[in-house]
């Protein structure tokens, strides 16, 4: 069979009925374009989230009390399993660069009649390193201030603008946190990371002060650990796991009273969620492909009927059943693939505009385009087969006599 000839034949047949061809392709065009747009947006959003999480520190490992939480924001009951002695034990582990216990809460903060509600975090001196918090003015508190339960605070840039007048001196000023006086010793630089806790909106005070004076609890909200480098993260996770199992005298893996999370894991969790969402939405968009496919089957059946005499003529000059089948099948496939390519072009263009509009990276993977073209040719084969076969099976005499 001369496929080149047959494809150019199919193209000229499709061009011969331009409006009908375009309308028939519309279902495929819309279907492919929406699948491309949804996949592009899903991948762009994932990339954007992953990027933000990575700036939080890919070498960081967090330990939370209680059994495994699924995804960020899961509600867990108060679990008191993590204590300061766990922190000290972790500090001695190999490949641990820094470690800090964390106790967080929300409380009222006031300065000269300005009253705001703010996130307040009791942390150790190492926390600055772990979260790579840059200090703009003054300094972060040190170890001795933590152990000495100093009433000092380091505050985020947004807290400053809410609490103080513009241009007002902040260092050395005394703010009231939950009714207790704290002296401001540091202001953080603008921080780009926007994770679960935004440093720009937070107040940091020494951990021991937080635990004993502010909320009065002897257990930790979490422990943050910084591994020496990203290769060491997995080892640190394992070591912390066995250390804490040991210390908490837990034998059964399923009964652990703590959860270790690192950002790698979080990234993969989020990618998973967005991946599932993208697949689901693409599947919905793909319904349009099904509808488009049925439209193509319909039009191909009409075409076969219209061209019955042509088929009779072709058979009389020696076309075998397979020749006719191939010709009509190819016509359906050329139709759907052309529609698919137009859909890819429209989808890519629209994705670009949307990505710019909502400020996410513009990603259209080659694999998405490959899948789109593959799926559209599959639609052509599946829905073109029945009409093509009925064309091939026409009796030549009946076809020649058809009026």
């Amino acid at each position, binding site marked *: 069979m001369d496929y080149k*000839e047959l494809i150019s*034949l199919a193209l000229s047949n499709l061009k011969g009925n331009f409006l009908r061809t375009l309308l028939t392709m519309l279902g495929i065009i819309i279907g492919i374009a929406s699948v491309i747009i949804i996949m592009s947006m899903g991948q762009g959003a994932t990339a954007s989230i992953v990027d933000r999480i990575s700036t939080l520190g890919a070498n960081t490992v967090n330990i939370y009390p209680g059994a495994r939480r699924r995804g960020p924001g899961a509600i867990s009951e108060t679990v008191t399993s993590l204590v300061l002695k766990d922190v000290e034990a972790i500090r001695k582990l190999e490949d641990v660069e820094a470690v800090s216990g964390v106790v967080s809460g929300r409380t009222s903060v006031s300065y000269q009649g300005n009253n705001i509600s703010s996130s307040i975090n009791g942390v150790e001196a190492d926390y600055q390193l772990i979260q790579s918090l840059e200090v703009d003015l003054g300094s972060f508190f040190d170890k001795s201030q933590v152990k000495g339960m100093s009433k000092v605070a380091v505050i985020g840039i947004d807290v400053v603008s809410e609490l103080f007048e513009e241009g007002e001196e902040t260092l050395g000023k005394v703010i009231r946190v939950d009714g207790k006086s704290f002296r401001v010793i540091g202001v953080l630089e603008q921080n780009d990371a926007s994770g679960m806790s935004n440093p720009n909106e937070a107040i940091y005070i020494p951990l021991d002060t937080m635990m004993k004076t502010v909320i009065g609890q002897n257990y930790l909200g979490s422990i943050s650990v910084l591994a020496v480098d990203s290769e060491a993260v997995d080892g640190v996770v394992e070591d912390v796991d066995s250390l804490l199992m040991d210390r908490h005298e837990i034998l059964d893996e399923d009964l652990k009273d703590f959860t270790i999370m690192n950002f790698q894991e979080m990234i993969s969790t989020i990618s998973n969620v967005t991946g599932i969402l993208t697949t689901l939405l693409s599947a919905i968009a793909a319904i349009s492909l099904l509808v488009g496919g049925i439209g193509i089957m319909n039009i191909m059946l009409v075409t076969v009927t219209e061209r019955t005499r042509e088929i009779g003529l072709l058979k009389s*000059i*020696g076309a075998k059943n397979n020749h006719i089948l191939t010709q009509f099948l190819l016509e359906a496939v050329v139709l759907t693939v052309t529609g698919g390519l137009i859909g890819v072009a429209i989808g890519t263009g629209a994705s670009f505009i949307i990505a710019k509009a909502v400020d996410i990276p513009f990603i259209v993977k080659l694999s998405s385009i490959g899948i789109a073209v593959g799926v559209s040719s599959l639609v052509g084969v599946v829905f073109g087969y029945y009409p093509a076969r009925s064309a091939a099976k026409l009796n030549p005499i009946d076809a*020649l006599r058809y009026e």
Partner: protein
Amino acid sequence: MKKKSIISFKDVTKTYVTGPVKHQALKGISFEIKKGEFTAIVGASGSGKSTTMNIIGALDIPTKGTYLLNNKNISEYNDDELAEMRNKEIGFVFQSFNLLPRTTVLKNVERPMMYAGISADKRKERAMKVLKSVGIAEKADNLSNHISGGQIQRVAIARALVMNPSIILADEPTGNIDSKTAHEIMKFLAKLNREGNTIILITHENHIAKYAKRIITLKDGKIISDKKK
């Protein structure tokens, strides 16, 4: 010297069954056509001449009796083998709808060679040669719907000739064109016959049948006369 038979009908019957109704279109006809003959098969509508043409053209097979095309028994062939037979042994010229729409004259003539698996270069070369021989080479790149009725029939003849078939089977080839052009086409067929082509003409018009050297007349599914000039 005896010329060999290209077509041999032996007691051929054809019965069409439509539901409970049986219609016998051919009631046992026998004849032979030899290489180089120019035969007209004539008869009124319902005489069985179309059925005869379908069988000669390997578009249909007899219900009973045997039809030998070049000594091959067509009745034993399947769809694809019949298609190959039509492709190689028979050149059809129809009354109307002879050419593929939206297709150039050249591509129309090339088409039977495509089904025979001949390469694109050879196809073009042979098609141009045949178009030249029917005197229409200058229209090669025109679309089939942009040429006149007489030209369409010439292109159809070119396509019929291009595979070098055993017979040219023309079914009312002048039915759709004016009488002046019709006579030109018939003269052209007569010329092809003088050059050695075997031609079978199906028609109901006596003045067209006159161009043939032999006239077989059918009536009600039987041969009522078989005259040679």
